[in-house]
């Protein structure tokens, strides 16, 4: 029996592992949460404007920028995205020391996380903004919008559900990258699982931290999906409509009571907005 527990939970006695967990768990959950939150925040501070520039500044964009500038921007983003995160962490250590005065510890992981994540965020934002209907942008031009107004009042609000979905993906990616922060002495659940759970063979700690990470990811994803749906008014996905569809009430599918043009219903079902 002991042998079985030994393989399953590692050689350290379970009670000792539990004691360790009790002492360290809350702090490490907190470290995971705040380093993820801050890195996500800073990634968007840099990545969101860059994503906007990638879309607005291209040749047929709303505010074309010089071609060389766009090429450099694309190149830098691609380079940063291709460097493995472990290498990146080590490369930016001098930068962390410059900004924070230290290159190790949980705070110090926020900088490589941000540098690794902002190009990814820029691409996510770019993808979301490209979804904006070209006709709507044309209408905005026709109404006399400035490029800035088009970004702020048309592109960003119209792409909001997609931006929220992207934000969820970014936050989860940053959370999982954060696990690697153990390499430069950062704390957090990931580091707890690697250093104490795996390397020191306290498998109970490994299981608990991994399960906690899974739960965290689930929570972030669920909240993100819920928010994106909540904010989505495109394609007849209003709550009322969804309910009507759920109850399969064909009579009330035509929402406009005063205009029987029959065209709207067709349009909505074609768009597949009821999925």
């Amino acid at each position, binding site marked *: 029996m002991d042998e079985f527990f030994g393989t399953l939970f590692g050689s350290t006695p379970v009670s000792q592992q539990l004691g360790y967990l009790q002492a360290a768990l809350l702090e490490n959950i907190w470290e995971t949460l705040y380093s993820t939150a801050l890195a996500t925040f800073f990634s968007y501070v840099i990545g969101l404007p860059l994503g906007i520039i990638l879309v607005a500044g291209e040749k047929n964009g709303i505010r074309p920028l010089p071609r060389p500038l766009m090429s450099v921007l694309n190149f830098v983003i691609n380079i940063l995205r291709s460097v493995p995160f472990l290498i990146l962490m080590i490369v930016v250590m001098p930068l962390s020391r410059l900004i924070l005065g230290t290159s190790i510890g949980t705070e110090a992981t926020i900088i490589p996380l941000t540098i690794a994540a902002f190009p990814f965020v820029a691409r996510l934002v770019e993808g979301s903004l490209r979804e904006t209907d070209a006709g709507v942008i044309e209408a905005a031009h026709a109404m006399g919008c400035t490029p800035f107004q088009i970004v702020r009042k048309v592109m960003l609000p*119209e792409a909001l559900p997609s931006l929220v979905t992207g934000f969820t993906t970014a936050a989860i990616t940053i959370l999982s990258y954060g696990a690697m922060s153990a390499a430069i002495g950062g704390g957090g659940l990931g580091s707890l699982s690697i250093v104490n759970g795996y390397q020191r063979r306290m498998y109970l700690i490994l299981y608990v931290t991994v399960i906690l990470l899974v739960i965290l990811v689930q929570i972030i994803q669920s909240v993100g999906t819920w928010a994106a749906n909540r904010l989505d008014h495109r394609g007849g996905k209003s709550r009322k409509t969804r309910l009507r569809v759920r109850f399969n009430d064909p009579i009330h599918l035509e929402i406009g009571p005063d205009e029987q043009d029959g065209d709207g219903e067709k349009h909505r079902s074609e768009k597949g907005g009821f999925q």
Partner: protein
Amino acid sequence: MIELRHVSKVFPTADGELRALNDINLTIGDGDVFGIVGMSGAGKSTLVRCINLLERPTQGQVVIDGKDLCALPEKELILQRRAIAMIFQQFNLLMQRTCLKNICFPMEIAGVKPTEAKKRALEYLGIVGLPDKADAYPAQLSGGQKQRVAIARALASDPKILLCDEATSALDPKTTRDILRLIQDINRRLGITVVVITHEMAVVEEICSHVAILDHGVLQETGTVEEVFSSPKTEAGRRLVYPDGVVIDQLPAANVIRIAFNGGSSYEPLIASLAIDCGVKANILGADTRNVNGQAFGTMLLGLPDDPDQIARAMNYIKNQPNVTVEEVRDYHG
């Protein structure tokens, strides 16, 4: 007044240049409902986009109320555009905004106070007949309702000109008529100049006072709807006015003439008297009447016997009738 002077637009493409518009000269008077018709690919959409400079002409001038838009700096052009509203085939509403907020949009852009904007937006929703849709999102509306909201949004910028780019092409016939009524009503009540781009002659018949026919980027003919409909002078014009026209090769007679009745005249006696007075037995190959702005217009295709003498007599006789024009049909095909 809108004046297009020598407007050309060339698009560079992979295999050379595409000349979408070729030396267009056009004057649209204040308060007109001006139709621009043509087959798809004729350059209509490019032409209408040249009026508010969504497309910048390669050559020529776009003069609105004496101001050449092409010569304006970007900032002033943006201000000028606010007086030129536009509605689209695909409505182009902001899907993430309620109807009310959509109508507020142009006022927001122009810096109208939110409370004032809301008040006016509700008024415009009333004008287009959707007073209860203020808080609905566009996705919850039918096509016709969406276009009504788009029209309300267009009105919200207090425009002098309304450009309609195939505004009814995505709608069913009944809704099309309702929307056209609304546009006509707005033209009459508010005196807004309306430019209608369409490939459907029925739309022109329904609401336009003037019409221009565009074909392969060239302005073929222009005039009042009555003039163009009663006797289209160009091939492209005839093709549009008589879309179901017969192919001349398939006609039983070798000599075909077209008679146009310009309102008020009844044409049965003409054919009968042609036979009695001239002794020419005409064969009616096809006839078509249409109601244009309350006046009856008719055209008739007649086949004449293969005898030059009889043809000359018939042509002479018809030419002397009041309210009737006649022409020989040589190159006509449907």
